[in-house]
């Protein structure tokens, strides 16, 4: 039985103390894979936030009806359903983003963040706390992905959200929109994040 928890703390923990990307190292694949531009990072973050929120809600609502032994398959079905919904809606209404995110949309289902929160939180806490938890973790994820995407886009393409601030043929740090750049950019962002979180705690 979960005690009444401070919902502000609940929300904020997902942003700094337990940030899914920088602290818990969850959801690394999409973090590195789709952040070659800020828009892609933001889009992926929001898609993941949606799935996380919906699955936390459903699982928190039906948790007493799911026998312990089959909880993982049950969670997977719920999560996979919401991912499929996102897939279909994106393909129909935002085809550009669907194209850019490509294979990483169905891969949201194996994002350890979502299954992790279902297992560690939503299946053990009330509806409101689960919603706030999802929002906190989700926004932590969105922020991480958007910042990484922005850094890579600025350095690698000289633009931000497709708004160019150097000329078309300027020499940009192309490495950052390529795979190695993802690792390197994230490495330095992780250092920065650690410094910030030490200061704020």
């Amino acid at each position, binding site marked *: *039985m979960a005690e009444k928890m401070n919902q502000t703390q609940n929300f904020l923990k997902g942003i700094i103390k337990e940030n899914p990307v920088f602290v818990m190292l969850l959801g690394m694949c999409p973090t590195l894979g789709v952040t*070659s*531009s800020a828009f*892609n990072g933001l889009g992926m973050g929001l898609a993941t936030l949606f799935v996380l929120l919906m699955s936390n809600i459903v699982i928190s609502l*039906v*948790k*007493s*009806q*799911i*026998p*312990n*032994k*089959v909880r993982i*398959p*049950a969670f997977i*079905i*719920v999560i*996979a*359903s919401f991912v*499929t*919904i996102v897939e*279909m*809606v994106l*393909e*129909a*209404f935002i*085809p550009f983003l669907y*194209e*850019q995110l*490509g294979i990483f949309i169905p891969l949201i289902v194996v994002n350890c963040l979502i299954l992790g929160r279902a297992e560690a939180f939503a299946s053990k806490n009330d509806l409101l706390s689960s919603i706030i938890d999802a929002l906190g973790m989700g926004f932590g994820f969105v922020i991480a992905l958007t910042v990484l995407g922005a850094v890579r*886009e600025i350095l*690698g*393409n000289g*633009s931000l959200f497709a708004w160019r601030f150097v000329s*078309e043929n300027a020499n*940009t740090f*192309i490495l950052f*929109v*390529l795979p190695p750049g993802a690792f390197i950019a994230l490495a330095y962002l992780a250092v920065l994040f650690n410094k910030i979180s030490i200061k704020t705690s």
Partner: protein
Amino acid sequence: MKKKESTFINMVGSLLVITVVAGFSLGFVNDLTIGPKATAKLKQKVNAIKLVLPEFNNNPVKDIQLLKLENSKDSIEVYPAFLNNTFVGAAVIGRTDKGFSGLIKIMVGFKPNGDIQNIAVLEQKETPGLGTKIKGETFLKQFRGINLSSYNLNVRKDGGETDALTGATITSRAFCDATKMAYEVFTIKNDSLNAFEN
């Protein structure tokens, strides 16, 4: 909050309920989105056709012709265009899987004599800022007016006349590949199209 016991019936029952509910919800959303999906795809094609062909006043989508090449899974779409019943060109969808990130689909507009009117990129997943520049004016304008019977459509590295994108040779090569394929289909269809009276 006590959880349900993990008896066999409970386990199977709860999974069954979840699966059925999930199945129905997905079927429902699928029905909702299938229309908009098709509309979005069609709109993209129609816009591309208009972009790559000279003026026409038929309905190329209605007059679509399909051609199946030997070693490809799907048929190639050819959209003939007529202005007052005279054949003025055809748009062919070329595709290749050899892009840096896989599939690239382009719409190539040919004049009856085989000259390329224009090319539009339909689908690609290339690296933003690098491979995605194939959609850009700077890259595309070199293809207008060329005729593959006399133009060596390869990147300069491979001995051809095409200027590849800096840092995106693979994408540029794949683009040439797709264009060549579209040309191949066009030449096969051209004879029948020229004789085709709308």
